[in-house]
């Protein structure tokens, strides 16, 4: 099937994969909202949503339906194009990140090895960074286009917070990259596959990365862009209907994806702990192993999503100067130190 010098099976394979991943992210994000309420309820000693369906399991659908049917309001004095572009960008950038993540071991369909990864690019993790750094625009444009002082303030807060924490995030990541010697996500996972996970070498790096991930996804204690007692409702104050839904949704997708990335970088990716996948594959077949590895990754990622929620319902919010102080004066020097020590140790061991 070659037409226009394009391998169409390849295209179809990737398209299916993309569709699957996007759907997965959406569904996970949907049920993360449910999870969030249940976790909150558990921590606050309540029951949480329990009316729609068994255990309230249909609650996300009901929420979605509600958001779709609400009246759509676009402020008159706002820039309409940018107002719509804001949530769109937030959603798109949230979903784009998933492209380079290896979701599981390769499958074998009809004598064709199908890697569960959309694009195994040479620059892997940098691509994630590139997309994450664009996530700012969704917030900034939305906040500015709302033509509302609170929205603008929140947008600026959000942007400066994300730009600041990106630095520490990148620095903490460099240590991991020095360990693996590659930016490629599949190589990073491959190094940890059936070996020691990176978390053993990089505990401080992981903690920094985790804190920065909290800040990047605007979760408590870093949810200053949405601080309702200071800024009413933050950058999406003027939004209603599904545009608001997109903003809220993007946050949950970001949470899920950052959980996946943390699992990939520090917790062995789709590696099943204490199990040799190669010998397992001989027993139950390659495709089943791929499924199992994928499920392992999901468990790891969902654990991080849970930790995110746990933190949200236990820790109070930072003040903005405290946030900047932590980012620039604590995390960045710490990340630099971590990087230098790692570099020295690596050089020393190689000698």
């Amino acid at each position, binding site marked *: 099937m070659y037409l*226009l*010098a*394009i391998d169409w099976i390849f295209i179809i394979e990737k398209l299916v994969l993309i569709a699957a991943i996007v759907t997965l992210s959406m569904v996970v994000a949907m049920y993360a909202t449910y999870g969030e309420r249940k976790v909150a309820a558990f921590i606050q000693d309540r029951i949480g949503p329990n009316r729609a369906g068994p255990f309230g399991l249909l609650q996300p659908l009901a929420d979605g339906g509600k958001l779709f049917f609400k009246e759509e309001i676009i402020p008159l004095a706002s*820039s309409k194009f*940018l107002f719509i572009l804001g949530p769109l960008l937030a959603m798109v950038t949230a979903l784009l990140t998933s492209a380079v993540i290896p979701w599981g071991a390769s499958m074998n369909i009809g004598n064709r090895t199908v890697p569960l990864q959309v694009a195994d*690019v*040479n*620059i892997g993790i*940098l*691509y994630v*960074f*590139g997309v994450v*750094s*664009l996530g*700012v*625009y969704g917030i*900034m*444009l939305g906040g*500015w286009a709302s033509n509302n002082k609170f929205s*603008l303030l929140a*947008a*600026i807060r959000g*942007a*400066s917070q994300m*730009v600041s924490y*990106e630095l520490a995030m990148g620095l903490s990541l460099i240590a991991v990259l020095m360990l693996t010697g*590659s*930016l490629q996500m599949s190589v990073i996972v491959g190094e940890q596959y059936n070996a020691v996970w990176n978390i053993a070498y990089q505990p401080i790096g992981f903690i920094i990365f985790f804190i920065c991930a909290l800040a990047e996804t605007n979760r408590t204690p870093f949810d200053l862009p949405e601080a309702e007692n200071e800024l009413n409702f933050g950058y999406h104050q003027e939004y209603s209907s599904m545009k608001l839904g997109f903003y809220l949704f993007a946050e949950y997708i970001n949470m899920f994806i950052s959980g996946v990335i943390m699992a990939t970088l520090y917790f062995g990716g789709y590696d099943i702990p204490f199990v040799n996948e190669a010998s397992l594959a001989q027993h139950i077949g390659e495709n089943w192993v791929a499924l199992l590895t994928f499920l392992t990754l999901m468990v790891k990622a969902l654990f991080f999503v849970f930790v995110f929620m746990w933190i949200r319902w236990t820790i109070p919010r930072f003040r903005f100067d405290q946030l900047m102080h932590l980012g620039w004066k604590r995390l960045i020097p710490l990340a630099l130190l971590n990087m230098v020590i790692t570099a020295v140790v690596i050089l020393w061991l190689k000698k």
Partner: protein
Amino acid sequence: MNITQLLFWLLTVIAIGSALMIVTSKNPVYSVLGLIVTFFAISGHYILMNAQFLAIVNIIVYAGAIMVLFLFVIMLMNLSRATETLKNKWLQIVGAIAGSCLFLVLIAALKNTEIKKNLVEMGTGDIGLVKSLGRELFTTFVVPFEISSVLFLSAMIGAVVIGKKE
């Protein structure tokens, strides 16, 4: 015309179109957006040349950091259509003439370069990949690479000097 050439021309049209948008747009926010799109299109060109690292760094640094600061300034200063000041017609005419002259010179300069030979270099050659780039930077180009640290240090000191309260 194969698919890479198609992509090349598509990206070129996007780059030029959005670059024109930067200049012609009355609202500075749209100009910034145009610039971001231009950066993306140029990154696309880099990818066509298999210079992946350059492409993504272009996006991270320019689109992800610098343009955010641009937007910051524009939003905080609340620049909008009403504050346009440049109205001197002669200045505009002179600017147009000077710009066209520069354009002519560049056209003349580029007209007989070997553009017909190799439009894109998709997937071939690993010169733009991280590994070879890093090796080059730390062997052949180590002197300028290290010296540029002085540049950044001086810029940092400058930021402190300018930014800190007296």
